């Protein structure tokens, strides 16, 4: 379940926040304890909750075409065959999270639309994901690693459907 290691392919553009060093173990389905552990009781937020909030926040940014990459897709397909790997924690394509007691670290694999500045887009995605997860869960987001795995070209899609009319240059 260490899918964070082969994250970036040769063609991918990876932007990364420099933050605290962490172990590469992905605890996708492990629950997290919130900071407000008091005599009144503990609060546990499942990792899948953080995953979903992060996925929604990333997709909210226009210019993000879809989520997921080759590697995460393969692991996602594999994980659903493992007992307990997919039942409680629904795996959102392209979103891996690591949730601690007070903090969360998030890895995103995204496919961008052609025409968007990838640096600006990654910045906007990161900002939105941090805001959403921190506001919704109360966890501190220590880092959001974004791997841009592909770029989506709308022209290619159109070219498949519509045969391009050949306009002659000469009359």
């Amino acid at each position, binding site marked *: 379940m260490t899918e964070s290691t082969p994250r970036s392919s040769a063609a991918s553009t990876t932007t990364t926040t420099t933050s605290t060093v962490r172990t590469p173990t992905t605890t996708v389905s492990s629950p997290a304890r919130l900071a407000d552990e008091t005599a009144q*009781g*503990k*609060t546990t937020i499942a990792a899948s909750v953080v995953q979903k909030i992060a996925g929604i926040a990333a997709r909210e940014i226009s210019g993000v075409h879809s989520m997921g990459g080759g590697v995460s*897709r393969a692991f996602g397909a594999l994980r659903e065959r493992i007992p307990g790997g997919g*039942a*409680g924690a629904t795996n959102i394509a392209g979103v891996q999270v690591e949730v601690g007691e007070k903090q969360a670290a998030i890895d995103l694999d995204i496919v961008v639309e052609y025409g968007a500045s990838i640096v600006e887009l990654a910045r906007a995605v990161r900002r939105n994901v941090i805001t959403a997860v921190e506001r919704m869960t109360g966890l501190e987001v220590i880092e959001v690693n974004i791997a841009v795995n592909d770029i989506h070209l709308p022209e290619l*899609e159109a070219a498949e459907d519509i045969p391009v009319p050949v306009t002659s240059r000469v009359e």
Partner: protein
Amino acid sequence: MSAPGPLPATVEERDALAERVSAAVLAVPGVAGPHGGRYNDIATFRAGGRLVGVRIGEGAEPVEVGVVLRLDRPIPDVVADVRDAASRLCGGAAVDITVGDVVGDAVDDLLGHPAGDAPGSGGAATGADPGRMVR
């Protein structure tokens, strides 16, 4: 009868309390339903069947509540309300709360399938999703 708090000693009382706690928790705004926790162990075994989402501990054990939340309010706010509602019924006992899942239109969009699907099908949906989106 050695329980320090007012938590009930008999099974019948505990079952009845679990039902009251369950009703109160599900009435909190932002709570979409009960959740059994990661191992489906947050439940009360009663004569009438299993009540998922509430477990009244014995003795010094805490009260455990598992919920599925809607994403229309920040989770800490909802959790605080759930804890208030449950703790009040249990005489101020500690209440451990597990947020097992979240639901909502945005989650459905993300998963690419409508609400009401079995949770187990989520993996299949996410497995199919990138194939559809990524070319």
